[in-house]
């Protein structure tokens, strides 16, 4: 599904990713862990095409398409969703209107007609209920005045509405209490199926207890320095990066 080869990324003149390789097949769940500042968010932005993230070498291929040729919105149209580490506030734009615009844009990209207003409302209400979000929050401006946990839950509502093929979830578990963590994890697990893949970026084993990954990678110093199965995350939790011979903030 996603193939990243020898990826080099620069931001603001700084080399952040330095030859990263990662292959995610259909139906797989991958977890990326790594010290602060290692370049995890940078990787998620590079996959999704954030302006200002310059790809100086390497390739990103999604479903056989050269992703680097596509604009960020086109990549979203292809079915890639990014759950942001820091979701952005958009004053004056209600969650409902935002999602409606998003869904219809994506549908337009896929040459599908607009979703009927009634169907949309039914869908968003059921998704909000699944994620135990108060329907009143759908009327509030996108992320404005939301607590950290509410923002993350809102990202999950957006994900389930947009129904992506690949979800990249950047520290979606950070800042969640135990109950919220379980709700979010259930949301991620609902997406699991043989056609869809998930890349979770996390610091904590507690998420991976619920969302059991097929592969775990450690990103440090701009590269994947270690890969393994779910036991790698458990070892990391016990021994720390140093215990595995990985220098923190090696950059």
């Amino acid at each position, binding site marked *: 599904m996603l193939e990243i080869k020898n990826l080099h990324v620069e931001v603001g003149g700084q080399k952040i990713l330095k030859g990263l390789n990662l292959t995610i097949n259909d139906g797989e769940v991958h977890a990326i862990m790594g010290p602060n500042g290692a370049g995890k968010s940078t990787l998620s932005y590079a996959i999704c095409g954030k302006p200002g993230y310059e790809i100086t070498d390497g390739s990103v291929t999604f479903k056989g398409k050269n992703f680097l040729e596509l604009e960020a919105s086109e*990549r979203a*149209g292809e079915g890639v969703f990014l759950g942001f580490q820091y979701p952005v506030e958009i004053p004056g*734009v209600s969650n409902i209107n935002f999602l409606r615009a998003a869904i219809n844009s994506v549908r337009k990209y896929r040459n599908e007609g607009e979703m009927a207003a009634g169907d949309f409302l039914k869908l968003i209400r059921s998704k909000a209920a699944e994620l135990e979000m108060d329907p009143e929050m759908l009327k509030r401006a996108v992320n404005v005045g939301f607590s950290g946990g509410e923002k993350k839950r809102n990202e999950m509502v*957006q994900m389930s509405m947009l129904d992506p093929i690949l979800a990249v979830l950047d520290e979606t578990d950070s800042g969640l209490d135990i109950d919220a963590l379980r709700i979010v994890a259930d949301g991620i697990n609902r997406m699991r199926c043989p056609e869809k893949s998930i890349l979770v970026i996390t610091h904590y084993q507690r998420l991976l207890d619920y969302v059991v990954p097929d592969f775990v990678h450690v990103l440090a110093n701009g590269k994947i320095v270690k890969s393994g199965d779910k036991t790698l995350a458990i070892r990391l939790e016990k021994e720390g990066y140093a215990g595995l011979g990985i220098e923190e903030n090696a950059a």
Partner: protein
Amino acid sequence: MVSTLETRQAVEEISGEYKYGFVTDIETVKAPKGLSEEVIRFISAKKDEPAWLLDWRLKSYKKWLKMEEPDWAMLDYEKPNFQDIYYYAAPKSADDRPKSLDEVDPELLKTYEKLGISLQEQEVLSGVAVDIVFDSVSVATTFRKALKEKGVIFCSISEAARDYPALMKKYLGSVVPAADNFYATLNSAVFTDGTFVYIPKGVRCPMELSTYFRINEANTGQFERTLIIADDNSYVSYLEGCTAPMRDENQLHAAVVEIVVLDEAEVKYSTVQNWYPGDKNGVGGIYNFVTKRAACRGLNSKVSWTQVETGSAITWKYPSCILQGDGSVGEFYSVAITNNYQQADTGTKMIHIGKNTSSTIISKGISAGKAQNIYRGLVKVMPNAENTRNFTQCDSLLIGDECGAHTVPYIEAKNPTSQIEHEATTSKISDEQLFYCLQRGLDVEESVSLIVNGFCKEVMQQLPMEFAVEAQKLLGISLEGSVG
């Protein structure tokens, strides 16, 4: 100004963006070019006006000759050559005013169809009555009969001068005196058409009233004059829309709008101003120099101005409220968008004269390209105005690094019991906001439109439902090409 190949190409390039830029090919009758007593007599004769009105025009003209064009606004433009303008242009077919829609020139009907304005009374958008002003004349007014049954007068101001002399004499120039300011005085001398509205005592106008102003002819100024009178305990919501073809030269639109609100009456006045803004390089566009003022003369009178200003090369207007009656209320909700080389100096004046009067000002300025956007507002509290309140909020949104936003609030409080609050913010569309939208599948234009509409929400939700959707789209279109 000679149109070079380059400017023509530039105009062609953006023709996709300003979709109202076409010209209607129609035979017109014009006054001789330039301004003189003869031209004023010509206009007055064309309109078959009573002598008192011609007299009023001529007096205004004499005053105007002694006035100087003001330059206190933060605007940079080439002053119009007043002898190089046609002050009257009208479709020949409107020479004897059509009695019904069936008699209106089909070419004109087609024009309005293209502009998305329905003149068919039986159409779905039937909650709205329209007066259509094309260059210097009103060519049609819909729903007159239905309105008349309620006693509502809705007609062109030229007709009102003939048919309702008592109301006209009493109120014309009573809010904006003939010698008020340079452009208002010019308007008083040469005004051509506009709308007259009278809502009788105790009547809630059964539908939205609106006027659609269109400038078509080249080198022609439009001098619209609108007068709205809301008698005791009445209510009306009125909306004006404006468009013009794309031309290389600047064209002048100098309007005067007067509103009189009596005891317990309310007027809601909305504007969606989309005059041709000029091209990407700042060539052409309308000079929009407008005086709009409402007098709340009765107990608890209320007036609410809502404006969405997206067009014009230069906008210079301050819809104001004179809060004379005790307990009267003035509101001003404004969105002003400037892109490319557009300039807007706009705001309001709230003059608190009566006791317990209150006013609210919400201004949203959006600048993109190399544009300048100025909020200029005055809140004045007279010595006898006990217990008055004002709340002002001015927010500016910048798109890019080459544009500017300025806020110039004047406060003159001469009564110690007044409470005046002023808040101002300036922000930018951040890369983070933009990417967030892009990642959800919106393209750049949609993202900017969404963020800007969110920024303007408090103002947009004041618009009548029938126009809100159109206006939202317009915000997006006006900012096309401003990012990325």
